[in-house]
C-alpha cells in the first residue's frame, strides 16, 4: 500500500488498505461490515460530488459510483442476511467511516476545479486501497465460499472504477 501517496496527494488518511494489511486477520462478520462500510463511504462521497462537482464528467463518474456501490451493497446485505451473518463492527470499519467523514468535510470546503481534483484524487487512492485490501486481506480471509465469491466477483468493477478515476485525473489536473 502506497500510504505516503494517499497522505500527500489526497491530503487525507485513508487507512483502509494499510490498516487491513497490518491486521491480524478478520472474520466473515467483520469482512461483511468492512464491505458495507467501504461501499457506503464511496456512496456518500459520490452523492456530494454528483451535486457539487463542476465538470460533467466528474458528476457522471460520481453517479456511477453511487449506482455501482449501492448495487454491491444490496447484494452484500442480501448475502449476509441469507447466511445469517451479522456485520460486526471493527477497527477497520470504524477507520473507514471516520476517514469518509473527514473526506466529506474537506470536500465541503472546496468548489469548482479544486473540488473536482480532490474528489477524483481521493477516488483513485481509495479504489487502489480497496483493491489492495481485497487481494491481500478480504478475499484470502473470507472463509464462507459465497462471501469469498462475492468479493472475487466485485473486483473487476472496482478495477474499472480505478481506471475511470485515473482517466478523469488527466482532465482534473489540467490535461496533464
Amino acid at each position, binding site marked *: 500500500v502506497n500510504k505516503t501517496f494517499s497522505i500527500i496527494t489526497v491530503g487525507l488518511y485513508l487507512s483502509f488498505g494499510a490498516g487491513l494489511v497490518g491486521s491480524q486477520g478478520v472474520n466473515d462478520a467483520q469482512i461483511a461490515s468492512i464491505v458495507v462500510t467501504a461501499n457506503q463511504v464511496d456512496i456518500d462521497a459520490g452523492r456530494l460530488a454528483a451535486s457539487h462537482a463542476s465538470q460533467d464528467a466528474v458528476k457522471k463518474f460520481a453517479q*456511477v459510483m453511487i449506482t455501482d456501490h449501492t*448495487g454491491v451493497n*444490496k*447484494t452484500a446485505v442480501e448475502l449476509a442476511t441469507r447466511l445469517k451473518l451479522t456485520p460486526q463492527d471493527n477497527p477497520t470499519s470504524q477507520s473507514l467511516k471516520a476517514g469518509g467523514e473527514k473526506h466529506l468535510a474537506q470536500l465541503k470546503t472546496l468548489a469548482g476545479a479544486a473540488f473536482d481534483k480532490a474528489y477524483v484524487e481521493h477516488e483513485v487512492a481509495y479504489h487502489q486501497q480497496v483493491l489492495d485490501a481485497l487481494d491481500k486481506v478480504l478475499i484470502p480471509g473470507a472463509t464462507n465460499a459465497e462471501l469469498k465469491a462475492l468479493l472475487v*466477483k466485485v473486483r473487476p*468493477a472496482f478495477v*474499472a472504477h480505478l*481506471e475511470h478515476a485515473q*482517466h*478523469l485525473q488527466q482532465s482534473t489536473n489540467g490535461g496533464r
Partner: protein
Amino acid sequence: MVSPRTLGVPAALVFAAVLASCGRLQPTADRPPAQTHTVTMEGMAFQPNVIAVAAGDTIVWVNKDMVPHSATSDTAGFDSKVVQAHGSWQRASSGSVTSNTSARSTHG
C-alpha cells in the same frame, strides 16, 4: 461509434459488434430453426465474446454482475440502454452476422 450515453459509464460494457454481412440470406426452406443465444455480462466482460448469429435468431444479454451494464453496438445501431444488475435484454437479429462481443470499460 460508441454512444455518448455509454461513455463515462465505467461499469457499462460496450457491445462492440462487428457486423459482417454474409451476403444473400439463405432460402427460407434451408434455414435452420431460429435459435436463442445467451451472452452473459459478468466480471466486466462478455461471455462468449464472439458469437455467430443467423437471421431470425435472438440474442439475450444477461447481466450477472452486481452493477448495471449496457450492450451497445459500435456499428449496428442498437443500444440496450441500462441493463440492471441481474436483469437482461434481448434483440432479434435481422440479418446473418458474426458478432464480436469483446468488452471494454468505457471512460468519459
